[in-house]
């Protein structure tokens, strides 16, 4: 600690240069935080996915519907605990930019399948008793200031009601929270029986008795691959062949439509940190060159080579850790308000794990940028250095 004023004073020597270097480090770590949050938003669902859940969709495309009758057949397959279905509703609330997911579901099965959605028992009972009832995630409820008892009009881009009207009215009977940080609390779920009857009466016979995809709860997660194979075998050579995969793989495949997110993020951050390595390394090397004589004086006074190396490394680490802390802090603040797209990236947040990774990177960056200047300082011969004062 007694050396800290000396190290700190050296950083203040060239204020403009230090500030600009610090600023570049701060920007790099803000970028790190934002990209980590985007990556979390796109692939974070993989980590949250249930290991004991399989997703069954049409083998050709998820936009093709599957028969509702499959559910009973799935429930008979060995290894399957129970199955339930969801269907994409594609509704708009007031404005197309107000995006959030809506799906008709079978309430009892749905709540049993997804225990990560926390709904108070009274609200879940209300949902079972209200045919037009819907439950909505805390995030969306807060966004639109919805409360229980509100009647919400949602215009579907796909489904019409009996009178041909595409605007569906739902009664908000429950607001659910997520059991874990990162649980998506943007969707709205409503009752499948209300939905199915209405679309039947509207004459949309092409979709009658059909659903979007199934989620299967399996008895033993270790048997996931075998059960998935049995499910697909069950519907082989039917009009709607299936593709079954673990929920995590399904989410991964969904995110991969954009590209290999992890690789893209790693490539961008790699380039950014490599540039910072050069910028900070150059600042440190210049700093050491400029005070060769002073380092000679320190050595003459009795400072050892190890102490001189420690000073230079401490200086570079102080710079990168300070920049890293400010950058990560700002990134945390910028992402703390959640999804900036209001629905497209429901899992958008800066994961604590990545915060620690960032802290580690800032220290590693300090050590890497200070390494060669420290070596340069260590190798200085005192008599030579004093001549350069």
């Amino acid at each position: 600690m007694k050396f800290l004023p000396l190290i700190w004073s050296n950083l203040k020597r060239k204020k403009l240069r230090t500030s600009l270097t610090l600023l570049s480090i701060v920007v790099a770590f803000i970028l790190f935080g934002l990209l980590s949050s985007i990556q979390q938003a796109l692939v974070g669902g993989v980590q949250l996915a249930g290991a004991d859940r399989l997703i069954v969709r049409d083998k050709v495309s998820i936009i093709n519907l599957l028969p509702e009758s499959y559910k009973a057949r799935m429930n008979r397959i060995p290894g399957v605990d129970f199955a339930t279905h969801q269907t994409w509703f594609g509704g708009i609330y007031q404005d197309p930019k107000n995006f959030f997911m809506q799906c008709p579901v079978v309430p009892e099965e749905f709540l049993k399948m997804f225990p990560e959605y926390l709904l108070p028992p009274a609200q879940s009972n209300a949902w079972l008793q209200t045919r037009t009832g819907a439950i909505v995630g805390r995030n969306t409820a807060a966004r639109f200031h919805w409360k229980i008892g509100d009647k919400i009009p949602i215009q579907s881009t796909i489904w019409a009601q009996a009178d041909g009207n595409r605007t569906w009215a739902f009664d908000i009977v429950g607001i659910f929270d997520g059991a874990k940080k990162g649980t998506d609390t943007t969707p709205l779920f409503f009752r499948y029986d209300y939905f199915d009857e209405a679309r039947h009466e509207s004459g949309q016979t092409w979709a009658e008795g059909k659903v979007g995809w199934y989620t299967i709860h399996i008895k033993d997660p270790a048997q996931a691959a075998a059960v998935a194979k049995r499910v697909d075998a069950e519907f082989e050579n039917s009009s709607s062949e299936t593709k079954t995969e673990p929920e995590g793989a399904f989410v991964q495949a969904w995110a991969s439509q954009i590209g290999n997110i992890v690789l893209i993020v790693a490539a961008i951050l790699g380039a950014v940190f490599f540039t910072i390595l050069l910028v900070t390394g150059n600042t440190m090397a210049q700093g050491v060159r400029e005070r060769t004589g002073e380092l000679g004086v320190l050595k003459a006074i009795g400072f050892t080579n190890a102490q001189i190396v420690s000073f230079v490394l401490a200086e570079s680490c102080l710079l990168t850790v300070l920049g890293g802390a400010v950058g990560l802090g700002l990134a945390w603040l910028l992402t703390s308000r959640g999804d900036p797209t209001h629905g497209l990236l429901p899992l958008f947040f800066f994961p604590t794990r990545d915060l620690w990774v960032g802290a580690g990177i800032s220290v590693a960056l300090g050590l890497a940028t200070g390494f060669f200047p420290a070596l340069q300082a260590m190798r200085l011969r005192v008599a030579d250095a004093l001549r350069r004062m």
Partner: protein
Amino acid sequence: MNENPTGGAALVRVEGVDKVFHRGSEDIHVLSDLHLEAPAGEFLALMGPSGSGKTTLLNLIGGLDRPTKGTVTVAGERLDQLSDRRLAAWRARHIGFVFQLYNLMPVLSAERNVELPLLLTHLSHAERRQHVAAALAMVGLSHRAKHYPRTLSGGEQQRVGIARGIVTDPTLLLCDEPTGDLDRKAGDEILDLLQALNRDQGKTIVMVTHDPHASARAARTVYLNKGQLSQEPVK
């Protein structure tokens, strides 16, 4: 030739020292078979023209460089046998340096500059402050303790340099042209200070200078020319 006319116990003993610098394929012989002894409590001036090897000899005595041949013994320690780490620790304990260009850290205040050698000791913060205050008082700069080198005159900077050199109460004070960058008045003040340190504190001082006015303040002057010492000035 052995230079210790006082015949007292030698604090500094340089025996048969050669120093050769290698510049490319060329060998430059700066000191050859040099002998010098200085007893404790002496104020010794080392004179000679530029390039005569004065600073090289001072660096060898201060453990900043190693002889190509021969031995350097200071305060009973064979410097040529110490590792770099032990030599650094030895310097911290026994040597105070005063440089021609003061060599202060521009980013540190006068008191922080003086405190630097004390950072290598086990003294507490309060003890360090006491030592720093005493050293600054000794050089008459207590009122300038918080000032940075750029706000001090050359003479004041050199006083800070001297305070830094004596703050650990070293065995030996080595001064390399301490008045070389000062006007006559400021130079005289520095020489007065060095004389007082030698006379009142019994501090052993070896001072390199090419100024006869400065060397006249020393108790003894030896002359260095072409790597050899003599009692007489170079003609």
